[in-house]
Protein backbone atom coordinates (compact mmCIF):
# COMPACT_ATOMS: atom_id res chain seq x y z
CA UNK A 1 0.00 0.00 0.00
CA UNK A 2 2.83 2.38 0.89
CA UNK A 3 4.37 1.82 -2.51
CA UNK A 4 1.07 2.45 -4.21
CA UNK A 5 0.64 5.76 -2.39
CA UNK A 6 4.13 6.88 -3.32
CA UNK A 7 3.53 5.93 -6.94
CA UNK A 8 0.23 7.78 -6.90
CA UNK A 9 1.89 10.86 -5.38
CA UNK A 10 4.60 10.79 -8.04
CA UNK A 11 1.93 10.58 -10.74
CA UNK A 12 0.86 14.05 -9.66
CA UNK A 13 3.93 15.49 -11.39
CA UNK A 14 3.24 14.32 -14.97
CA UNK A 15 -0.48 15.09 -14.66
CA UNK A 16 0.26 18.63 -13.49
CA UNK A 17 2.64 18.93 -16.41
CA UNK A 18 -0.13 17.71 -18.72
CA UNK A 19 -2.47 20.32 -17.31
CA UNK A 20 0.10 23.07 -17.88
CA UNK A 21 0.59 21.90 -21.46
CA UNK A 22 -3.14 21.71 -22.18
CA UNK A 23 -3.63 25.25 -20.92
CA UNK A 24 -0.70 26.46 -23.02
CA UNK A 25 -2.13 24.80 -26.13
CA UNK A 26 -5.59 26.27 -25.58
CA UNK A 27 -4.37 29.81 -25.02
CA UNK A 28 -1.40 30.06 -27.43
CA UNK A 29 -2.19 27.91 -30.41
CA UNK A 30 -5.62 29.35 -31.07
CA UNK A 31 -6.45 30.23 -34.65
CA UNK A 32 -5.63 33.91 -35.10
CA UNK A 33 -3.47 36.10 -32.97
CA UNK A 34 -3.54 35.93 -29.14
CA UNK A 35 -2.45 39.55 -28.95
CA UNK A 36 -5.30 40.68 -31.18
CA UNK A 37 -7.70 38.59 -29.11
CA UNK A 38 -6.46 40.20 -25.95
CA UNK A 39 -6.38 43.77 -27.21
CA UNK A 40 -9.95 43.68 -28.46
CA UNK A 41 -11.58 44.86 -31.65
CA UNK A 42 -10.94 48.54 -31.09
CA UNK A 43 -7.16 48.24 -30.72
CA UNK A 44 -4.78 49.89 -33.18
CA UNK A 45 -2.16 47.94 -35.12
CA UNK A 46 0.61 49.63 -33.09
CA UNK A 47 -0.82 48.62 -29.74
CA UNK A 48 -1.29 45.06 -30.99
CA UNK A 49 2.32 44.95 -32.17
CA UNK A 50 3.46 46.30 -28.81
CA UNK A 51 1.40 43.71 -26.95
CA UNK A 52 2.78 40.95 -29.15
CA UNK A 53 6.28 42.09 -28.26
CA UNK A 54 5.38 42.25 -24.57
CA UNK A 55 3.88 38.76 -24.59
CA UNK A 56 6.87 37.35 -26.45
CA UNK A 57 4.67 36.12 -29.27
CA UNK A 58 7.36 36.85 -31.86
CA UNK A 59 9.44 33.95 -30.56
CA UNK A 60 8.98 30.43 -31.85
CA UNK A 61 6.33 28.27 -30.21
CA UNK A 62 8.85 25.95 -28.47
CA UNK A 63 10.65 28.96 -27.00
CA UNK A 64 7.34 30.37 -25.78
CA UNK A 65 6.43 27.01 -24.28
CA UNK A 66 9.73 26.71 -22.40
CA UNK A 67 9.48 30.25 -21.12
CA UNK A 68 5.91 29.59 -20.01
CA UNK A 69 6.95 26.46 -18.09
CA UNK A 70 9.87 28.37 -16.58
CA UNK A 71 7.55 31.16 -15.41
CA UNK A 72 5.16 28.64 -13.88
CA UNK A 73 7.96 26.88 -12.01
CA UNK A 74 8.98 30.19 -10.50
CA UNK A 75 5.45 30.92 -9.37
CA UNK A 76 5.01 33.64 -11.97
CA UNK A 77 1.46 33.04 -13.11
CA UNK A 78 1.07 36.30 -14.93
CA UNK A 79 -0.18 39.78 -14.25
CA UNK A 80 -3.85 40.64 -14.41
CA UNK A 81 -4.62 43.43 -16.84
CA UNK A 82 -7.67 44.43 -14.86
CA UNK A 83 -6.35 44.24 -11.30
CA UNK A 84 -2.91 45.57 -12.32
CA UNK A 85 -1.20 43.05 -10.06
CA UNK A 86 -0.20 39.41 -10.02
CA UNK A 87 -3.17 37.12 -10.61
CA UNK A 88 -2.41 35.22 -7.40
CA UNK A 89 -4.06 37.55 -4.90
CA UNK A 90 -7.49 37.89 -6.60
CA UNK A 91 -7.55 34.12 -7.14
CA UNK A 92 -6.61 33.35 -3.55
CA UNK A 93 -9.35 35.70 -2.36
CA UNK A 94 -11.98 33.76 -4.32
CA UNK A 95 -10.71 30.19 -4.09
CA UNK A 96 -11.96 29.45 -0.53
CA UNK A 97 -15.50 30.51 -1.51
CA UNK A 98 -15.60 28.04 -4.39
CA UNK A 99 -14.16 25.26 -2.23
CA UNK A 100 -16.73 26.03 0.48
CA UNK A 101 -19.61 25.93 -1.99
CA UNK A 102 -18.38 22.72 -3.62
CA UNK A 103 -17.84 21.02 -0.26
CA UNK A 104 -21.29 22.02 0.96
CA UNK A 105 -22.87 20.77 -2.26
CA UNK A 106 -20.97 17.49 -2.16
CA UNK A 107 -22.02 16.86 1.44
CA UNK A 108 -25.66 17.46 0.58
CA UNK A 109 -25.42 15.31 -2.53
CA UNK A 110 -23.74 12.44 -0.68
CA UNK A 111 -26.04 12.38 2.33
CA UNK A 112 -29.33 12.68 0.44
CA UNK A 113 -28.23 10.79 -2.68
CA UNK A 114 -26.95 7.77 -0.76
CA UNK A 115 -30.00 7.66 1.52
CA UNK A 116 -32.39 7.75 -1.42
CA UNK A 117 -30.31 5.10 -3.20
CA UNK A 118 -30.45 2.73 -0.22
CA UNK A 119 -34.19 3.20 0.26
CA UNK A 120 -34.72 2.50 -3.44
CA UNK A 121 -32.58 -0.62 -3.30
CA UNK A 122 -34.39 -1.97 -0.24
CA UNK A 123 -37.73 -1.43 -1.95
CA UNK A 124 -36.55 -2.26 -5.47
CA UNK A 125 -39.27 -2.39 -8.11
CA UNK A 126 -41.91 -0.86 -5.84
CA UNK A 127 -43.49 2.54 -6.36
CA UNK A 128 -41.00 4.12 -3.90
CA UNK A 129 -38.16 2.91 -6.09
CA UNK A 130 -39.82 3.93 -9.36
CA UNK A 131 -40.68 7.39 -8.04
CA UNK A 132 -37.20 8.11 -6.69
CA UNK A 133 -35.48 6.83 -9.81
CA UNK A 134 -37.77 8.88 -12.05
CA UNK A 135 -36.94 11.93 -9.91
CA UNK A 136 -33.27 11.04 -10.28
CA UNK A 137 -33.43 10.91 -14.10
CA UNK A 138 -35.23 14.23 -14.03
CA UNK A 139 -32.54 15.56 -11.69
CA UNK A 140 -29.81 14.59 -14.14
CA UNK A 141 -31.69 16.35 -16.95
CA UNK A 142 -32.41 19.68 -15.25
CA UNK A 143 -30.31 22.69 -16.18
CA UNK A 144 -28.74 23.79 -12.88
CA UNK A 145 -29.06 27.48 -13.62
CA UNK A 146 -32.77 27.09 -14.22
CA UNK A 147 -33.29 25.04 -11.07
CA UNK A 148 -31.44 27.75 -9.13
CA UNK A 149 -33.65 30.52 -10.49
CA UNK A 150 -36.79 28.48 -9.75
CA UNK A 151 -35.67 27.82 -6.16
CA UNK A 152 -35.06 31.55 -5.72
CA UNK A 153 -38.55 32.28 -7.06
CA UNK A 154 -40.11 29.78 -4.68
CA UNK A 155 -38.12 30.10 -1.45
CA UNK A 156 -36.95 33.70 -1.57
CA UNK A 157 -39.51 35.64 -3.58
CA UNK A 158 -42.74 33.74 -2.87
CA UNK A 159 -42.20 32.23 0.58
CA UNK A 160 -39.47 34.56 1.87
CA UNK A 161 -37.81 31.72 3.79
CA UNK A 162 -34.30 32.07 2.45
CA UNK A 163 -32.14 34.91 1.17
CA UNK A 164 -31.80 35.26 -2.61
CA UNK A 165 -28.28 33.97 -2.36
CA UNK A 166 -26.00 36.71 -1.33
CA UNK A 167 -22.69 35.63 0.07
CA UNK A 168 -22.84 37.64 3.26
CA UNK A 169 -26.23 36.61 4.55
CA UNK A 170 -26.50 33.92 7.19
CA UNK A 171 -28.32 31.24 5.19
CA UNK A 172 -27.06 32.54 1.86
CA UNK A 173 -25.21 29.35 1.04
CA UNK A 174 -28.30 27.09 1.23
CA UNK A 175 -29.83 27.77 -2.18
CA UNK A 176 -26.61 27.77 -4.23
CA UNK A 177 -25.38 24.61 -2.48
CA UNK A 178 -28.67 22.75 -2.96
CA UNK A 179 -28.83 23.79 -6.60
CA UNK A 180 -25.29 22.66 -7.23
CA UNK A 181 -25.94 19.41 -5.38
CA UNK A 182 -29.10 18.46 -7.31
CA UNK A 183 -27.33 16.89 -10.26
CA UNK A 184 -24.80 14.88 -8.25
CA UNK A 185 -27.50 13.84 -5.82
CA UNK A 186 -29.36 12.20 -8.67
CA UNK A 187 -26.25 10.51 -10.06
CA UNK A 188 -25.24 9.20 -6.62
CA UNK A 189 -28.73 7.94 -5.85
CA UNK A 190 -28.75 5.90 -9.07
CA UNK A 191 -25.28 4.57 -8.42
CA UNK A 192 -25.97 3.62 -4.79
CA UNK A 193 -29.20 1.89 -5.76
CA UNK A 194 -27.64 -0.33 -8.41
CA UNK A 195 -24.58 -1.33 -6.34
CA UNK A 196 -26.72 -1.85 -3.24
CA UNK A 197 -29.08 -4.17 -5.13
CA UNK A 198 -26.05 -6.14 -6.27
CA UNK A 199 -24.56 -6.31 -2.76
CA UNK A 200 -27.83 -7.37 -1.15
CA UNK A 201 -27.86 -10.49 -3.33
CA UNK A 202 -24.48 -11.62 -2.03
CA UNK A 203 -24.01 -14.70 0.11
CA UNK A 204 -22.62 -12.82 3.08
CA UNK A 205 -25.84 -10.84 3.34
CA UNK A 206 -27.81 -14.08 3.47
CA UNK A 207 -25.42 -15.35 6.12
CA UNK A 208 -25.83 -12.21 8.16
CA UNK A 209 -29.60 -12.46 7.89
CA UNK A 210 -29.65 -16.13 8.86
CA UNK A 211 -27.56 -15.33 11.91
CA UNK A 212 -30.60 -13.37 13.01
CA UNK A 213 -29.00 -9.96 12.83
CA UNK A 214 -31.48 -7.11 12.73
CA UNK A 215 -32.23 -5.62 9.30
CA UNK A 216 -30.60 -2.33 10.27
CA UNK A 217 -27.29 -3.99 11.06
CA UNK A 218 -27.36 -6.08 7.90
CA UNK A 219 -28.05 -3.05 5.73
CA UNK A 220 -25.59 -0.67 7.32
CA UNK A 221 -22.59 -2.75 8.37
CA UNK A 222 -22.76 -5.55 5.83
CA UNK A 223 -24.48 -3.91 2.89
CA UNK A 224 -23.64 -0.23 2.93
CA UNK A 225 -19.96 -0.52 3.70
CA UNK A 226 -19.46 -2.69 0.66
CA UNK A 227 -21.77 -0.68 -1.57
CA UNK A 228 -20.06 2.60 -0.69
CA UNK A 229 -16.82 1.86 -2.51
CA UNK A 230 -18.13 2.25 -6.08
CA UNK A 231 -20.36 5.11 -4.93
CA UNK A 232 -17.44 7.02 -3.45
CA UNK A 233 -15.38 6.41 -6.58
CA UNK A 234 -18.17 7.98 -8.59
CA UNK A 235 -18.40 10.83 -6.09
CA UNK A 236 -14.71 11.55 -6.67
CA UNK A 237 -15.23 11.66 -10.43
CA UNK A 238 -18.36 13.74 -9.97
CA UNK A 239 -16.41 16.43 -8.17
CA UNK A 240 -15.09 17.49 -11.55
CA UNK A 241 -18.64 18.02 -12.79
CA UNK A 242 -19.45 19.80 -9.57
CA UNK A 243 -16.55 22.23 -10.04
CA UNK A 244 -17.68 22.84 -13.62
CA UNK A 245 -21.26 23.35 -12.46
CA UNK A 246 -20.17 25.79 -9.77
CA UNK A 247 -19.09 28.13 -12.55
CA UNK A 248 -22.70 28.60 -13.64
CA UNK A 249 -24.24 28.49 -10.17
CA UNK A 250 -21.86 31.15 -8.86
CA UNK A 251 -23.03 33.41 -11.67
CA UNK A 252 -26.70 32.76 -10.87
CA UNK A 253 -26.32 33.49 -7.16
CA UNK A 254 -23.64 36.20 -7.35
CA UNK A 255 -21.38 33.95 -5.28
CA UNK A 256 -17.89 35.53 -5.18
CA UNK A 257 -15.93 32.43 -6.19
CA UNK A 258 -13.50 31.46 -8.92
CA UNK A 259 -16.30 30.89 -11.44
CA UNK A 260 -17.53 34.46 -11.13
CA UNK A 261 -13.97 35.74 -11.45
CA UNK A 262 -13.53 33.62 -14.57
CA UNK A 263 -16.69 34.94 -16.19
CA UNK A 264 -15.77 38.53 -15.35
CA UNK A 265 -12.26 38.01 -16.72
CA UNK A 266 -13.64 36.58 -19.96
CA UNK A 267 -15.84 39.64 -20.35
CA UNK A 268 -12.86 41.94 -19.73
CA UNK A 269 -10.51 39.90 -21.97
CA UNK A 270 -8.15 39.50 -19.03
CA UNK A 271 -6.40 36.50 -20.56
CA UNK A 272 -3.58 36.11 -18.00
CA UNK A 273 -6.30 35.84 -15.37
CA UNK A 274 -8.43 33.43 -17.43
CA UNK A 275 -5.43 31.20 -18.02
CA UNK A 276 -4.46 31.17 -14.35
CA UNK A 277 -8.01 30.35 -13.20
CA UNK A 278 -8.32 27.47 -15.67
CA UNK A 279 -5.04 26.17 -14.30
CA UNK A 280 -6.34 26.42 -10.74
CA UNK A 281 -9.39 24.35 -11.70
CA UNK A 282 -7.08 21.70 -13.13
CA UNK A 283 -4.97 21.61 -9.97
CA UNK A 284 -8.12 21.44 -7.82
CA UNK A 285 -9.37 18.48 -9.80
CA UNK A 286 -6.02 16.66 -9.78
CA UNK A 287 -5.71 17.21 -6.03
CA UNK A 288 -9.19 15.85 -5.39
CA UNK A 289 -8.45 12.77 -7.51
CA UNK A 290 -5.20 12.25 -5.63
CA UNK A 291 -6.85 12.53 -2.25
CA UNK A 292 -9.66 10.16 -3.25
CA UNK A 293 -7.22 7.56 -4.59
CA UNK A 294 -4.99 7.70 -1.52
CA UNK A 295 -7.99 7.52 0.81
CA UNK A 296 -9.14 4.39 -0.99
CA UNK A 297 -5.79 2.74 -0.60
CA UNK A 298 -6.01 3.43 3.12
CA UNK A 299 -9.68 2.64 3.66
CA UNK A 300 -10.37 -0.34 1.41
CA UNK A 301 -8.59 -3.44 2.72
CA UNK A 302 -9.70 -5.60 -0.22
CA UNK A 303 -7.86 -3.63 -2.82
CA UNK A 304 -4.31 -4.72 -3.37
CA UNK A 305 -2.54 -2.04 -5.30
CA UNK A 306 0.72 -3.95 -5.66
Amino acid sequence: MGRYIIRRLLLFIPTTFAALTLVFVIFRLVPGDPARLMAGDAATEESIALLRQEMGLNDSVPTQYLRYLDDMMHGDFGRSRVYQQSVIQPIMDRLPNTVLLAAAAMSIALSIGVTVGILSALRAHTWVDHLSMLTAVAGVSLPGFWLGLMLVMLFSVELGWLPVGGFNTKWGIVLPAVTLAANQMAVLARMTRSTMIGVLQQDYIRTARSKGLPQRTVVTTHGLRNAMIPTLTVAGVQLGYLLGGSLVIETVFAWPGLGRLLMDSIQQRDYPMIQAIVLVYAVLMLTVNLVVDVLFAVVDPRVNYG
Partner: protein
Amino acid sequence: MASAPVGPIPLGQEADQPSRRARTLSRFLRNRSGQLGLLIILVFVIATVIAVFWTPYPVDQPDLPNRLAAPSLQHPMGTDDVGRDVLTRLAVGARYSLTMGVVAIALAAAIGVPIGLLAGYRGGWWDTGSMRLVDVLMVLPTFVLAVAIVSVLGSGIRSVILAVAVTTIPVFARLTRSLALTIRSQDFVAAAQVAGASDGRILLRHILPNSLSPLVVQASLGIGATILIAAALGFLGLGVQPPTPEWGTMLSRGRSYMSTAPFLVFFPGIVIALLVLGFNLLGDSLRDALDPWMREIE
Protein backbone atom coordinates in the same frame (compact mmCIF):
# COMPACT_ATOMS: atom_id res chain seq x y z
CA MET B 1 -12.23 -14.74 -49.23
CA ALA B 2 -15.56 -12.97 -49.59
CA SER B 3 -17.58 -16.16 -49.09
CA ALA B 4 -15.81 -17.21 -45.90
CA PRO B 5 -18.33 -17.34 -43.04
CA VAL B 6 -16.34 -15.20 -40.64
CA GLY B 7 -18.95 -12.54 -39.97
CA PRO B 8 -19.72 -11.36 -36.45
CA ILE B 9 -21.51 -14.54 -35.41
CA PRO B 10 -23.60 -13.87 -32.32
CA LEU B 11 -22.25 -15.66 -29.31
CA GLY B 12 -23.90 -18.83 -28.05
CA GLN B 13 -26.84 -18.48 -30.35
CA GLU B 14 -28.94 -21.35 -31.66
CA ALA B 15 -29.93 -21.26 -35.29
CA ASP B 16 -33.69 -21.07 -34.71
CA GLN B 17 -33.60 -18.39 -32.01
CA PRO B 18 -34.40 -14.80 -32.92
CA SER B 19 -31.19 -12.87 -33.45
CA ARG B 20 -29.50 -11.02 -30.63
CA ARG B 21 -30.36 -7.73 -32.22
CA ALA B 22 -34.04 -8.66 -32.45
CA ARG B 23 -34.09 -9.73 -28.81
CA THR B 24 -32.44 -6.50 -27.75
CA LEU B 25 -34.91 -4.53 -29.83
CA SER B 26 -37.91 -6.28 -28.34
CA ARG B 27 -36.53 -5.72 -24.83
CA PHE B 28 -36.15 -2.06 -25.66
CA LEU B 29 -39.63 -1.72 -27.14
CA ARG B 30 -41.18 -3.21 -24.03
CA ASN B 31 -39.46 -0.62 -21.84
CA ARG B 32 -41.89 2.11 -20.88
CA SER B 33 -39.33 4.83 -20.08
CA GLY B 34 -37.58 4.15 -23.39
CA GLN B 35 -40.85 4.68 -25.21
CA LEU B 36 -41.38 7.92 -23.33
CA GLY B 37 -37.88 9.13 -24.22
CA LEU B 38 -38.38 8.31 -27.87
CA LEU B 39 -41.77 10.04 -27.85
CA ILE B 40 -40.30 13.23 -26.32
CA ILE B 41 -37.51 13.36 -28.89
CA LEU B 42 -39.99 12.72 -31.70
CA VAL B 43 -42.24 15.57 -30.55
CA PHE B 44 -39.26 17.94 -30.52
CA VAL B 45 -38.10 16.83 -33.96
CA ILE B 46 -41.59 17.30 -35.39
CA ALA B 47 -41.87 20.74 -33.78
CA THR B 48 -38.47 21.66 -35.23
CA VAL B 49 -39.50 20.60 -38.73
CA ILE B 50 -42.83 22.43 -38.51
CA ALA B 51 -41.06 25.58 -37.29
CA VAL B 52 -38.89 25.54 -40.40
CA PHE B 53 -41.96 25.96 -42.60
CA TRP B 54 -44.50 27.64 -40.37
CA THR B 55 -44.66 29.44 -37.03
CA PRO B 56 -47.73 31.00 -35.39
CA TYR B 57 -45.94 34.36 -35.12
CA PRO B 58 -42.87 35.89 -36.76
CA VAL B 59 -39.74 34.97 -34.80
CA ASP B 60 -38.14 38.34 -34.66
CA GLN B 61 -40.80 40.99 -35.05
CA PRO B 62 -41.27 43.18 -31.98
CA ASP B 63 -44.85 43.80 -30.88
CA LEU B 64 -44.37 46.36 -28.16
CA PRO B 65 -48.02 46.83 -27.12
CA ASN B 66 -48.06 43.11 -26.29
CA ARG B 67 -44.78 42.95 -24.40
CA LEU B 68 -44.46 40.67 -21.35
CA ALA B 69 -47.99 39.33 -21.89
CA ALA B 70 -48.79 36.44 -19.55
CA PRO B 71 -49.57 33.04 -21.08
CA SER B 72 -52.97 33.08 -22.77
CA LEU B 73 -54.79 31.36 -25.63
CA GLN B 74 -53.14 33.70 -28.13
CA HIS B 75 -49.70 33.23 -26.62
CA PRO B 76 -49.62 29.88 -24.76
CA MET B 77 -46.22 30.67 -23.25
CA GLY B 78 -46.56 34.45 -23.12
CA THR B 79 -44.51 37.09 -24.92
CA ASP B 80 -41.03 38.39 -24.16
CA ASP B 81 -39.74 41.87 -23.36
CA VAL B 82 -40.35 43.16 -26.89
CA GLY B 83 -43.60 41.27 -27.44
CA ARG B 84 -42.32 38.26 -29.38
CA ASP B 85 -44.23 34.99 -28.94
CA VAL B 86 -42.24 32.71 -26.61
CA LEU B 87 -43.66 29.45 -28.02
CA THR B 88 -42.62 30.47 -31.53
CA ARG B 89 -39.13 31.34 -30.41
CA LEU B 90 -38.72 28.11 -28.45
CA ALA B 91 -39.90 26.07 -31.46
CA VAL B 92 -37.41 27.86 -33.71
CA GLY B 93 -34.71 27.55 -31.06
CA ALA B 94 -35.09 23.76 -30.98
CA ARG B 95 -33.09 23.43 -34.19
CA TYR B 96 -30.02 25.04 -32.58
CA SER B 97 -30.03 22.79 -29.52
CA LEU B 98 -30.65 19.66 -31.60
CA THR B 99 -27.98 20.62 -34.12
CA MET B 100 -25.39 21.41 -31.47
CA GLY B 101 -26.13 18.17 -29.62
CA VAL B 102 -26.04 15.92 -32.66
CA VAL B 103 -23.15 17.54 -34.52
CA ALA B 104 -20.89 17.86 -31.48
CA ILE B 105 -21.42 14.21 -30.55
CA ALA B 106 -20.96 13.06 -34.15
CA LEU B 107 -17.70 15.00 -34.31
CA ALA B 108 -16.48 13.62 -30.99
CA ALA B 109 -17.34 10.08 -32.09
CA ALA B 110 -15.70 10.57 -35.49
CA ILE B 111 -12.43 11.40 -33.73
CA GLY B 112 -12.72 9.34 -30.55
CA VAL B 113 -13.92 6.04 -32.04
CA PRO B 114 -11.02 5.50 -34.49
CA ILE B 115 -8.52 6.40 -31.76
CA GLY B 116 -10.15 3.91 -29.40
CA LEU B 117 -10.44 1.17 -32.04
CA LEU B 118 -6.76 1.33 -32.89
CA ALA B 119 -5.69 1.67 -29.26
CA GLY B 120 -7.70 -1.35 -28.18
CA TYR B 121 -6.90 -3.53 -31.16
CA ARG B 122 -3.25 -2.69 -31.70
CA GLY B 123 -2.21 -2.24 -28.10
CA GLY B 124 1.45 -1.43 -27.47
CA TRP B 125 2.85 2.03 -27.84
CA TRP B 126 -0.08 3.22 -29.93
CA ASP B 127 -2.40 2.34 -27.08
CA THR B 128 -0.25 3.97 -24.40
CA GLY B 129 0.50 7.04 -26.49
CA SER B 130 -3.00 7.82 -27.69
CA MET B 131 -4.57 7.14 -24.31
CA ARG B 132 -2.12 9.42 -22.49
CA LEU B 133 -2.93 12.10 -25.03
CA VAL B 134 -6.64 11.61 -24.44
CA ASP B 135 -6.08 11.69 -20.68
CA VAL B 136 -4.67 15.20 -21.01
CA LEU B 137 -8.13 16.41 -22.04
CA MET B 138 -9.50 15.02 -18.79
CA VAL B 139 -7.36 17.03 -16.38
CA LEU B 140 -9.90 19.84 -16.52
CA PRO B 141 -13.53 19.72 -15.42
CA THR B 142 -15.52 19.28 -18.66
CA PHE B 143 -17.40 22.52 -18.39
CA VAL B 144 -14.30 24.55 -17.51
CA LEU B 145 -12.55 23.13 -20.58
CA ALA B 146 -15.53 24.07 -22.74
CA VAL B 147 -15.60 27.60 -21.31
CA ALA B 148 -11.84 27.98 -21.83
CA ILE B 149 -12.09 26.91 -25.47
CA VAL B 150 -15.04 29.18 -26.17
CA SER B 151 -13.25 32.07 -24.45
CA VAL B 152 -10.45 31.91 -27.03
CA LEU B 153 -12.52 30.91 -30.08
CA GLY B 154 -15.21 33.52 -29.42
CA SER B 155 -18.90 32.87 -28.93
CA GLY B 156 -21.17 31.33 -31.53
CA ILE B 157 -22.62 28.00 -32.57
CA ARG B 158 -19.39 26.73 -34.17
CA SER B 159 -17.27 27.41 -31.11
CA VAL B 160 -19.80 25.68 -28.88
CA ILE B 161 -19.88 22.60 -31.11
CA LEU B 162 -16.09 22.46 -31.29
CA ALA B 163 -15.65 23.00 -27.54
CA VAL B 164 -18.12 20.27 -26.58
CA ALA B 165 -16.73 17.88 -29.19
CA VAL B 166 -13.20 18.28 -27.80
CA THR B 167 -14.37 17.65 -24.24
CA THR B 168 -16.28 14.52 -25.33
CA ILE B 169 -13.52 12.87 -27.40
CA PRO B 170 -12.05 11.08 -24.32
CA VAL B 171 -15.42 9.51 -23.48
CA PHE B 172 -15.70 7.90 -26.91
CA ALA B 173 -12.03 6.99 -27.21
CA ARG B 174 -11.95 5.23 -23.85
CA LEU B 175 -15.25 3.42 -24.31
CA THR B 176 -14.30 2.20 -27.80
CA ARG B 177 -10.90 1.11 -26.57
CA SER B 178 -12.35 -1.05 -23.82
CA LEU B 179 -14.87 -2.56 -26.26
CA ALA B 180 -12.17 -3.30 -28.83
CA LEU B 181 -10.06 -4.90 -26.12
CA THR B 182 -12.82 -7.36 -25.15
CA ILE B 183 -13.96 -8.08 -28.69
CA ARG B 184 -10.50 -8.71 -30.09
CA SER B 185 -10.13 -11.76 -27.85
CA GLN B 186 -13.34 -13.30 -29.20
CA ASP B 187 -13.19 -16.43 -31.34
CA PHE B 188 -14.68 -14.82 -34.43
CA VAL B 189 -11.85 -12.27 -34.52
CA ALA B 190 -9.30 -15.08 -34.28
CA ALA B 191 -11.18 -16.88 -37.06
CA ALA B 192 -11.03 -13.80 -39.25
CA GLN B 193 -7.32 -13.39 -38.55
CA VAL B 194 -6.68 -17.03 -39.45
CA ALA B 195 -8.72 -16.59 -42.60
CA GLY B 196 -6.28 -13.84 -43.55
CA ALA B 197 -8.47 -10.77 -43.14
CA SER B 198 -6.55 -7.50 -42.97
CA ASP B 199 -6.46 -5.43 -39.79
CA GLY B 200 -8.56 -2.76 -41.45
CA ARG B 201 -11.19 -5.32 -42.44
CA ILE B 202 -11.27 -6.82 -38.95
CA LEU B 203 -11.65 -3.39 -37.37
CA LEU B 204 -14.38 -2.21 -39.72
CA ARG B 205 -16.30 -5.44 -40.30
CA HIS B 206 -15.94 -7.22 -36.99
CA ILE B 207 -14.91 -5.00 -34.11
CA LEU B 208 -16.75 -1.81 -35.02
CA PRO B 209 -20.16 -3.44 -35.73
CA ASN B 210 -19.96 -5.30 -32.44
CA SER B 211 -19.10 -2.10 -30.56
CA LEU B 212 -21.91 -0.14 -32.12
CA SER B 213 -24.67 -0.68 -29.57
CA PRO B 214 -22.80 0.63 -26.50
CA LEU B 215 -21.60 3.54 -28.61
CA VAL B 216 -25.19 4.38 -29.52
CA VAL B 217 -26.06 4.40 -25.81
CA GLN B 218 -23.16 6.73 -25.14
CA ALA B 219 -24.17 8.97 -28.03
CA SER B 220 -27.72 9.28 -26.75
CA LEU B 221 -26.58 10.24 -23.25
CA GLY B 222 -23.92 12.49 -24.79
CA ILE B 223 -26.45 14.43 -26.86
CA GLY B 224 -28.44 15.11 -23.69
CA ALA B 225 -25.33 16.30 -21.86
CA THR B 226 -24.29 18.47 -24.81
CA ILE B 227 -27.66 20.20 -24.95
CA LEU B 228 -27.26 21.07 -21.26
CA ILE B 229 -23.72 22.38 -21.75
CA ALA B 230 -24.71 24.40 -24.82
CA ALA B 231 -27.64 25.92 -22.92
CA ALA B 232 -25.38 26.76 -19.98
CA LEU B 233 -22.89 28.45 -22.33
CA GLY B 234 -25.78 30.37 -23.88
CA PHE B 235 -26.96 31.36 -20.42
CA LEU B 236 -23.49 32.70 -19.58
CA GLY B 237 -23.50 34.73 -22.80
CA LEU B 238 -20.74 32.60 -24.33
CA GLY B 239 -22.90 30.52 -26.64
CA VAL B 240 -25.15 31.39 -29.53
CA GLN B 241 -25.72 35.14 -29.53
CA PRO B 242 -29.04 37.03 -29.62
CA PRO B 243 -31.28 37.65 -31.47
CA THR B 244 -30.99 33.94 -32.30
CA PRO B 245 -33.62 32.29 -30.11
CA GLU B 246 -31.28 29.79 -28.49
CA TRP B 247 -32.86 28.41 -25.30
CA GLY B 248 -30.10 29.27 -22.83
CA THR B 249 -29.78 32.78 -24.26
CA MET B 250 -33.54 33.33 -24.02
CA LEU B 251 -33.54 32.16 -20.42
CA SER B 252 -30.69 34.49 -19.54
CA ARG B 253 -32.51 37.46 -21.07
CA GLY B 254 -35.76 36.51 -19.37
CA ARG B 255 -33.97 36.63 -16.04
CA SER B 256 -34.17 40.44 -15.96
CA TYR B 257 -37.99 40.19 -15.90
CA MET B 258 -38.25 37.35 -13.43
CA SER B 259 -40.38 39.18 -10.86
CA THR B 260 -42.99 40.37 -13.36
CA ALA B 261 -42.80 37.66 -16.04
CA PRO B 262 -41.44 34.45 -14.51
CA PHE B 263 -42.73 32.45 -17.50
CA LEU B 264 -39.84 33.91 -19.54
CA VAL B 265 -37.51 31.81 -17.40
CA PHE B 266 -39.85 28.93 -16.67
CA PHE B 267 -40.68 27.77 -20.20
CA PRO B 268 -37.19 27.79 -21.77
CA GLY B 269 -35.92 25.78 -18.77
CA ILE B 270 -38.75 23.25 -19.02
CA VAL B 271 -38.09 22.80 -22.73
CA ILE B 272 -34.36 22.22 -22.18
CA ALA B 273 -35.04 19.77 -19.34
CA LEU B 274 -37.63 17.84 -21.38
CA LEU B 275 -35.42 17.35 -24.42
CA VAL B 276 -32.44 16.33 -22.26
CA LEU B 277 -34.73 13.98 -20.31
CA GLY B 278 -35.80 12.43 -23.62
CA PHE B 279 -32.23 11.59 -24.59
CA ASN B 280 -31.38 10.37 -21.07
CA LEU B 281 -34.42 8.07 -20.92
CA LEU B 282 -33.62 6.74 -24.38
CA GLY B 283 -29.97 6.14 -23.49
CA ASP B 284 -30.80 4.51 -20.13
CA SER B 285 -33.35 2.11 -21.54
CA LEU B 286 -31.12 1.23 -24.50
CA ARG B 287 -28.43 0.37 -21.99
CA ASP B 288 -30.83 -1.76 -19.95
CA ALA B 289 -31.92 -3.56 -23.11
CA LEU B 290 -28.31 -4.21 -24.05
CA ASP B 291 -27.21 -5.24 -20.59
CA PRO B 292 -27.62 -9.05 -20.90
CA TRP B 293 -25.63 -8.96 -24.12
CA MET B 294 -22.93 -6.85 -22.54
CA ARG B 295 -22.56 -9.55 -19.90
CA GLU B 296 -22.45 -12.22 -22.61
CA ILE B 297 -19.53 -10.56 -24.32
CA GLU B 298 -17.59 -9.98 -21.11
